[in-house]
């Protein structure tokens, strides 16, 4: 069977009855014949929480019917890229139905898995919509009574994310070798009143019926500011958007669906904290004083689990880099990290379920809406952005210029913090800037941040590996071979750190170049003007 040649949506005049087919086919030589019996399909569309598949033009759907289940990955035009049959769970059956949400590892190795890895990465696949489709097929015959196309009517009842009925969809599939006749049939159908072109995919139609749209979550700051809006209104909008992101990731973090829920949640907290410190002056001082310690508490709550996540996500790379030791010898170290992470995750989940957390988010939202409604008209959003970005930029240039070849590691750590502050400010106020200039400015800063990040992460990890080794010795879970392999990793981290240190001066020189500095100045000047 080929891809659908054309899809239509039936309005109430054609689709209201139990069975819209056969439609009249006036002025044509086509006639209808019964096809297969009507069938019910249970459909589940899967994507990552941040819609990585949808954003890449891919659709992943699990369809179950008559005890058989198949997961299919399709492209923009509905072409099948890969498919994998999965059988319902039976006792003793190793390849049972995958329970969603699940990481990719739950899927059997094969072409589907291969296609999904680069897009999905470490994220879990979770149901974004579920529906039951009742599909009735009819055949369309030409004057020789030969089938030239199959037409199916799909009456879809959406069950998730809300219960709703979608408009009946009619799809025309040409039989091989009969494309020309099927195209004529499409013209005939398109001319029937009440039959409209189906512009949405089945997933989009299911979500629209349930009142959602695909791609409605992104970890990026997507708040649209106007240059002349009062800074207090702008900052309240920024903080509210960050709170939305934070809250959107709580459930996935508590249920430990994948590591990126915590990552996004943590970034929202860090951005909030930086914005409070750097641009919080636009809000009432009492508000900032009250909430800064609470967000610090929240940030600290998320640190242990995220640190261990970073270690575990980088583990395959570390193990692959061993020269003397083996992956097998590192296994006790990995087990140790996994145990520590489980304990940290329990603490994190407790914290996110606590009354203190609900109070924080609830009161913060109330305070923001109150702050947004009142307050001064000046400074404007653009004035605030210009002054804060200029100040943060000056500090990065000043601190970076003071770092010599013999400067202590702490000076690089401090510079990294200043860079992060500048980055957050650029991102928060991004909607005020020229997109191309903004992109270039962030790119140049990121180049420097990557180097500083590598320098500090390797230092932290090197210190941590000593702590882990001591813990494992205390717990008597560290064989000598494991400790030796861990030592090798520590040595590798030291080499990587030296490498990052040696690259710093070049990277900083690029960032502090006259052209780059002029870009930041122009960016803020244009917004303020």
């Amino acid at each position: 069977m080929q891809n659908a040649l054309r899809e239509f949506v039936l309005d109430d005049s054609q689709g209201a009855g139990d069975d819209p087919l056969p439609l009249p086919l006036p002025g044509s030589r086509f006639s209808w014949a019964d096809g297969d019996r009507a069938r019910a399909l249970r459909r589940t569309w899967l994507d990552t929480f941040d819609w990585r598949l949808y954003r890449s033009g891919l659709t992943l759907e699990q369809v179950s019917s008559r005890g058989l289940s198949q997961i299919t990955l399709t492209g923009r035009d509905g072409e099948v890229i890969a498919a994998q049959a999965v059988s319902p769970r039976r006792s003793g059956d190793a390849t049972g139905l995958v329970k969603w949400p699940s990481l990719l590892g739950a899927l059997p190795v094969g072409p589907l898995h291969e296609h999904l890895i680069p897009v999905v990465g470490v994220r879990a696949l979770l149901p974004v919509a579920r529906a039951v489709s009742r599909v009735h097929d009819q055949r369309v015959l030409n004057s020789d009574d030969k089938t030239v196309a199959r037409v199916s009517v799909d009456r879809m009842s959406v069950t998730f994310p809300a219960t709703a009925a979608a408009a009946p969809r009619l799809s025309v599939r040409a039989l091989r070798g009969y494309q020309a006749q099927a195209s004529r049939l499409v013209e005939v159908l398109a001319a029937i009143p009440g039959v409209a072109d189906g512009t949405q995919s089945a997933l989009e139609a299911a979500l629209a019926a349930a009142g959602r749209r695909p791609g409605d979550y992104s970890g990026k700051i997507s708040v649209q500011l106007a240059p002349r809006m009062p800074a207090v209104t702008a900052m309240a909008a920024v903080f509210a958007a960050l709170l939305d992101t934070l809250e959107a990731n709580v459930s996935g973090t508590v249920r430990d669906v994948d590591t990126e829920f915590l990552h996004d949640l943590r970034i929202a907290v860090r951005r909030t904290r930086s914005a409070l410190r750097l641009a919080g002056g636009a809000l009432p001082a009492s508000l900032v004083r009250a909430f800064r310690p609470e967000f610090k508490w929240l940030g600290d709550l998320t640190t242990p689990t995220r640190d261990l996540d970073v270690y575990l996500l980088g583990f395959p790379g570390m193990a692959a880099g061993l020269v003397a030791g083996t992956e097998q010898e590192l296994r006790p170290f990995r087990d140790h990290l996994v145990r520590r992470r489980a304990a940290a995750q329990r603490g994190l989940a407790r914290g996110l379920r606590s009354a203190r957390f609900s109070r924080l988010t609830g009161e913060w939202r109330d305070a923001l809406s109150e702050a947004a409604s009142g307050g001064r008209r000046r400074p404007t959003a653009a004035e605030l952005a210009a002054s804060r970005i200029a100040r943060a930029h000056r500090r990065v240039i000043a601190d970076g210029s003071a770092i010599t070849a013999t400067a202590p590691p702490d000076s690089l750590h401090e510079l990294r913090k200043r860079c992060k502050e500048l980055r957050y400010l650029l991102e928060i106020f991004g909607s005020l800037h020229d997109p191309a200039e903004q992109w270039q400015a962030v790119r140049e800063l990121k180049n420097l941040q990557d180097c500083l990040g590598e320098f500090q992460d390797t230092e932290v990890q090197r210190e941590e590996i000593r702590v882990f080794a001591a813990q494992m010795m205390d717990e008597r879970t560290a064989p000598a071979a494991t400790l030796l392999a861990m030592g090798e990793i520590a040595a590798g981290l030291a080499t990587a750190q030296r490498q990052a240190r040696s690259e710093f001066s070049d990277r900083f020189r690029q960032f502090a170049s006259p052209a780059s500095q002029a870009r930041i100045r122009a960016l803020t000047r244009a917004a303020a003007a």
Partner: protein
Amino acid sequence: MRIFATYNIKGGVGKTATAVNLAYLAARDGYRVLLWDLDPQAAASFLFRVRPRVKGGGKALIAGKRSIDDAIKATDFDDLDLLPADFTYRNLDLLLDAGKKPARRLATLLAPLRSDYDVIFLDCPPGISLLSESVLGAADTVLVPLIPTTLSVRTLDQLTDFIAGLDGHRPSILAFFSMIDRRKRLHREIAEQLPGRRSDVAATAIPALSAIELMSVQRSPVTASAPRSRAGLCYRELWQEARQRGKLPDPPSRP
């Protein structure tokens, strides 16, 4: 991909009925099937209601100027496609003769379809010709319908000798009795005795049944229109035997 050919030097012995029904049963079993109607009489094309016409005719196909892919038509049945007959197929011998390695030509033409189809059936016209040689050069298994007469058995011997004399590729033979009239003693005797004596004769036999003749009226394989009829069951048995002899792997599971 396995290639089955229905072949006999004689005409009117049930080649097309066999090709059509076995192709349908293979598709029902979940194989992706192509049936090539090589007979200019176009009986298989007629049965599937496909117009017996190929753009550019047999010449373009055999010369490779037109892709086989473009000429294929879907039948009304899932997973069963047809490469229709064309009246120019009456010249296939001449067309094959004009090219290089005529005996391997069909095998070469069909090779690119390997990823599209699990099973191909070649429904051949009667006679012994360059086309027959090319069919034997492409087929893995030749299905030979026999009317149980002494002369028919002689033709099977001739065919066996002919295949044994081929250089290189030699298909296996699975002969079976077709159009058996149980009222005729000779039919009964030959059909009962020969399968025991020869390993290349199938245990299954297809009786002369009006349901099979009616296929041309209903324009549908009897295995589709009356799967539980005696004719339907006989073809099902024959297909099982052909599958085993042809060492056909299980079809890929596709819900």
